């Protein structure tokens, strides 16, 4: 096939995929039927692989489909299905507009040692220690973080602007959504990667995909034996070099009439630009034997560099605008374990399965999920953790467990979730308003969906909270509602392994309806 249509099809297809991904991550996924989202997600290589390792059923074997696709067609995945790859193409286009130099690529040497080292390190570290290199480098998760950290706030700004304009006209189609953001240090990794990927793609096309991305490198290895490839028609080629200049992967050697398939992402730009009809995409011809083996590819450099960023934040952000209470609470909460989201099962399992793509963070209607720094330790960097300072886990919701592409959060029915204990409530009487101020409060008990926090008589007319951890599900609504600062009088300490909560018992009300008016 040498039709210039190929490139147009690629652009159209990838644009649709990118738009779908953007909609999913800025939480407009209701616009797309769930089954299409599921297909899209199941074809993401790393998430699908992790899901399969966790639950080996045929439905979660999307990564096998990607491998087969690569065997047949080369790295089409990188141009058609990978949101980070497609996003980079967009950046490259912008780069080309900015400077002519940025759209003239030309043949470059592959960074063989570097790319195979990164792939090797990722595999070794994931197998031996934990998946944190994968979390850092998985292209889908990198893209997810870009969207959640930068894309969604921009979308919300636009939404809020529209809502503001519409409200002026008394129309309430758009609701104002408060942009909460995350703790400052959690931005480190997404910002660094955004600079890295951004600069590379603006100036050098697919350099990131062909040097750093472990999925790109792996698929590149496999595509060396792929059946469909970009081919030269030596009889037609005039060696004008246009193809090499337009090649985003800088992998065409037009003088030798060779394409480095391990770097070629099947973007079909070369076919489009060739004026001699010398480039085509088709079945590989076996006339010429491929005997040259790159010796460098087997060289592994063990170990990796992982920058440890920052220390756990000590100070806690006080809620803005809240007036200082009469007295400050004095007893610090003794938190022994972070609270992992519903469906995580155990923190250990969760940490070994989550790539921190932050899709659940984007999907959470209550904004209670936040990317972790070191709450889970190094292994859990960028993974979602429940932050009950800003919000709580709303009782009638299982959104996060439905969207997880890796099964790090397993699907839960609403009934199951409402009996899953993420953590246990702890009451610190010495911080409680009722004790320190001698005034009524009860914000915690009011918010408790199971009445694991209830009120008992205290001095005079006052009532004070008491807890029953057996029926607590660890939703954190009490902690969120508790108005004491700087320390809460009630908080949820996470369960390292989620437990089953007792269902709340409830007796028929003793009171009866009035026969007549009681006044």
């Amino acid at each position, binding site marked *: 096939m040498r039709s210039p249509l190929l490139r147009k099809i690629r652009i159209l297809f990838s644009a649709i995929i990118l738009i779908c991904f953007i909609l999913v991550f800025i939480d407009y996924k209701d616009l797309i039927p769930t089954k299409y989202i599921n297909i899209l997600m199941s074809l993401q290589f790393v998430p699908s692989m992790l899901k399969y390792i966790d639950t080996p059923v045929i439905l979660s074997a999307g990564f096998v489909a990607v491998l087969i696709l690569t065997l047949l067609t080369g790295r089409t995945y990188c141009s058609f299905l990978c949101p980070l790859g497609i996003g980079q193409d967009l950046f490259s286009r912008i780069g080309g507009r900015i400077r002519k130099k940025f759209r003239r690529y030309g043949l470059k040497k592959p960074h063989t040692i570097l790319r195979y080292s990164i792939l090797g390190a990722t595999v070794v570290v994931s197998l031996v220690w934990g998946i944190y290199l994968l979390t850092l480098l998985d292209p889908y998760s990198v893209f997810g973080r870009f969207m959640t950290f930068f894309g969604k706030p921009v979308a919300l700004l636009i939404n809020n602007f529209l809502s503001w304009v519409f409200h002026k006209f008394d129309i309430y189609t758009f609701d104002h959504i408060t942009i909460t953001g995350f703790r400052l240090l959690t931005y480190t990794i997404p910002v660094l990667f955004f600079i890295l990927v951004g600069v590379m793609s603006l100036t050098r096309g697919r350099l990131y995909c062909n040097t750093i991305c472990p999925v790109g490198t792996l698929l590149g290895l496999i595509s060396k034996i792929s059946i469909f490839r970009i081919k030269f028609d030596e009889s037609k080629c005039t060696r004008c070099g246009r193809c090499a200049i337009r090649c985003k992967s800088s992998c065409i050697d037009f003088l030798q009439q060779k394409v480095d398939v391990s770097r070629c992402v099947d973007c079909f730009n070369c076919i489009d630009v060739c004026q001699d009809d010398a480039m085509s995409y088709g079945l590989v011809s076996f006339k010429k034997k491929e005997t040259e083996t790159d010796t460098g590819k087997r060289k592994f450099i063990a170990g990796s560099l992982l920058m440890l960023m920052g220390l756990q934040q000590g100070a806690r952000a006080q809620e803005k605008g809240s007036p200082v209470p009469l007295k400050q609470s004095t007893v610090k909460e003794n938190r022994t374990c972070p609270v992992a989201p519903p469906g995580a099962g155990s923190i250990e399992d969760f940490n070994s399965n989550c790539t921190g793509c932050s899709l659940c963070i984007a999907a959470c209607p209550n904004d209670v999920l936040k990317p972790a720094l070191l709450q889970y330790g190094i292994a859990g960097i960028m993974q979602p953790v429940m932050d009950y300072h800003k919000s709580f886990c709303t009782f009638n919701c299982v959104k996060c467990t439905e969207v997880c592409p890796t099964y790090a959060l397993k699907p839960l029915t609403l009934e199951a979730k409402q009996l899953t204990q993420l953590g246990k409530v702890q009451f610190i009487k010495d911080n409680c308003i009722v004790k320190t101020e001698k005034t*009524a409060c009860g914000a915690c008990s009011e918010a408790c969906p199971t009445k694991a926090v209830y009120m008992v008589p205290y001095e005079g007319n006052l009532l004070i909270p008491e807890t029953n951890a057996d029926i607590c599900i660890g939703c954190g609504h009490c902690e969120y509602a508790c108005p004491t600062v700087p320390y809460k009088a009630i908080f949820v300490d996470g369960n390292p392994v989620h437990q089953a909560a007792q269902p*709340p018992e*409830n007796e028929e009300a003793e009171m009866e309806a009035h026969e007549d*008016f009681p006044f």
Partner: protein
Amino acid sequence: MQILLNKTVRIMKRRDFLRKSAGAGLAAGAALSLGGYSKLWAAAPSAAKYDMVAVMGGSPEAMFDLGIQELGGMGTFIKKGQKVLVKPNIGWDRPPEMGANTNPALVSRVIEHCLRAGAKEVYVFDHTCDNWVNCYRNSGIEKAAKDAGAKVVPGNSENYYQEIEIPGGVKLKKAKVHELLFDTDVFINIPVLKDHNSTRMTACMKNMMGVVWDRGFWHRNDLNQCIADYALFEKKPALNILDCYNVMVKHGPMGVSKEDVVQMKSQIISTDWVACDAAATKMLGVDLEKIEYIPYAHKLGLGNMNIDSLNIRRIKM
């Protein structure tokens, strides 16, 4: 620029209010000197015959139809072309039969009466405790209100709230309240009667926690006093319609299951929310003195908690 404009409008409105309230204050003083709160409230909007109407035994809609008729119809409170704010309790992500939120059928009927009385627009909102989208939907109120022709407005963002001062407030001197309170002409309060875990009862006055942004401040600074203090604020409801159809008598204000609910099939309608809350204590079977915000509000001169001295119309259906 827009903010500035807004502020100017606000200030003008406040001035307007001051002028009006000065007059009202004089009238109130006169009425008081002539004897009793009842006349004060009866005199305010028009010549309503009763201080309070209590209805029992019908559907929420039927009870309201009868009750409002006894007060001279909705036209007594709403003039043609006015904008109306209807404030139910939509605080919790619970289904209607749990009685955690105002009965949606009642909300719907009240809106219909407002529109029939010539209201230009009716707005409904609440600053919910649970996730607001779920509360609006699962309470059944969003759909009921929209179907009845009201505009359902969000209350989940600080952007919608404007700072006000409460002169005379003991603990609560400032609050941020929803802009709709300023943008509408008539305010109608439709709370639901419930048990409450710390104030022991929630009804009319406590429903105002859903028009302010920072509830935490109330909880930190003597909840009962703050509830009474807020009742001082100039934008008072023209009418309180207390839903006592499904009454959550324990585990309030959120409830655990249907076992918490007693079907009382009642409704109390009054322009005096202190009186309304006082009557509600009898319905719920709690000691009025223990619901501290009621005596506080009575002391601040915000209404009459001595229901024996009121002219109450009681209707059994």
